[in-house]
């Protein structure tokens, strides 16, 4: 009897959740003017269009040097943004961690900075910076930098908090100074995880750099936008393919590093 009632209650909860989701879905589709049937119906058509128009032709291959140039710029931009953000995040991470942080106030400050820079979208940063820095690589770099600091700080705080306390305690017992503890116990212990997060951030940043590039007119995003707006779909295809190849190569490389160090 009791069991049946429990099951009944559980089923009821499930039904309520599903109904609620259905309602919100309906409201969202009304609000955004989205028609799921229409969307699905055009999907095959869209794929046919993609396969027949987005092809790399010989003529577009001539543009390869320009594209490669921009691609390299984008990758370098993402790496530079990540590594320089790492330096700042390391300080913020140590400040913000519960286990090795020095004061509560600094910890809150670090978390606040991280939350702020992470939650203001990269797009907003790109647009703000574009106004004063103009259309150059530095704008893209800074937009990625701010977002990376937010993300990496959160990741580092978690990594530091999770690493074992024993090494820190042992060093404390020997009378090591705070700096020594950080340099000799905390950082070496967290390094593999940190490198893994850094590599992940680089992958993310390359994808974000395309978006930032479209908005700020830099790097591969700009090239894409240029071809896109001039209806040069073969160029669009070539840019897309080169981004895909670059991202997959970098993912494979960082997966390999991760496998060895973790």
């Amino acid at each position, binding site marked *: 009897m009791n069991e049946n009632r429990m099951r009944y209650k559980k089923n009821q909860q499930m039904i309520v959740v599903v109904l609620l989701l259905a309602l*919100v879905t309906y409201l969202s589709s009304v*609000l955004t003017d989205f028609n799921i049937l229409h969307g699905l119906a055009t999907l095959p058509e869209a794929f046919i269009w993609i396969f027949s128009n987005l092809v790399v032709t010989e003529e577009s291959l001539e543009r390869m040097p320009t594209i490669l140039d921009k691609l390299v710029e984008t990758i370098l931009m993402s790496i530079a943004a990540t590594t320089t953000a790492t330096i700042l995040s390391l300080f913020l991470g140590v400040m913000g961690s519960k286990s090795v942080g020095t004061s509560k106030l600094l910890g809150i400050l670090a978390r606040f900075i991280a939350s702020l820079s992470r939650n203001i979208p990269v797009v*907003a940063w790109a647009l703000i910076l574009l106004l004063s820095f103009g259309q*150059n690589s530095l704008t893209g770099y800074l937009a990625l930098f701010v977002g990376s600091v937010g993300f990496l700080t959160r990741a580092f705080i978690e990594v530091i908090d999770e690493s074992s306390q024993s090494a820190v305690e042992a060093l404390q017992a020997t009378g090591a100074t705070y700096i020594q503890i950080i340099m000799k116990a905390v950082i070496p212990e967290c390094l593999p995880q940190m490198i893994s997060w850094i590599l992940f951030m680089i992958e993310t940043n390359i994808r974000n750099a395309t978006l930032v590039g479209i908005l700020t007119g830099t790097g591969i995003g700009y090239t894409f936008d240029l071809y896109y707006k001039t209806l040069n779909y073969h160029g669009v295809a070539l840019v897309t393919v080169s981004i895909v190849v670059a991202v997959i190569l970098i993912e494979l490389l960082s997966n390999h590093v991760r496998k060895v160090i973790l």
Partner: protein
Amino acid sequence: MQATTHMKRRSDGRISIKSGNEVQLIMQLTILILTVLTVLAFLFFDYTGLDIQRAIKETAYNLRVMFLEPALSHFGWGEAFHQVGITLGLAFLSTILGAVLSFFLALSAATNLTNEWITKIVRIFLAFIRAVPTVLWVLIFAIAAGLGSEAAVLGMLFHSIAYLVKAFSEAFEEVDKGIIEALRATGAGWWHIVVHAILPSTFTYLMSWTFLRFEINFAVAVAMGAAAGAGGIGFELFMASSFYFDLREVGMITYMILVLAIILEVISTLLKNRYFPASIKN
């Protein structure tokens, strides 16, 4: 951690004192390469039209105007909430559709439910989807079928699926083998196993992952509005900063996005702490 405490032995049984070396080497090499590339990046950057001093001063001024004197000028509060609603709607639609499709795909990607090479095909397919940035998917769909909000949702759907299938299939793989075997022994079919064993034991987990993705999709939807003209608050942000140069409005919009993003983050952190073990992050 393991590198320092784990002892590797050589074939003759002696402790290999070089055991940590490969790990150390790779880590040092990675750091070195990244440093070199960073330096190179700064040398190769295109600095056209840049006046650092003026730019920094201007940014400081811009930020002050944005954050200290926010105001709406091109549209009222009602319109602002409507636009925020559209962004949330786009995020929600791509998340919920993504979750439903991912559920079925994840069933075929979980190693304990299907054979090895269907898993492999699904994974390669997802790796390819992930490699194309979301904004390119949206733009490609926009030209391919000229869909409006449909292009945005379909484009965002792709990455949601790539993300959720990975999360879901890992959850399915953790389901107790005993339960599946017991059901199989009673002659239950594949669908019985899914409905009565897999789904009940992973349901809350799946819901949490879906919400985490919703949090990400909100940020993506803002970006899509700005870059691909998919509408919503992101599009207003783009208009305010690139067409009207109205910093006060940019500030107000940024605040609105910030408040929503922080609310979503707090909810997802609570969910994470409640449903996920400490080992799973992000």
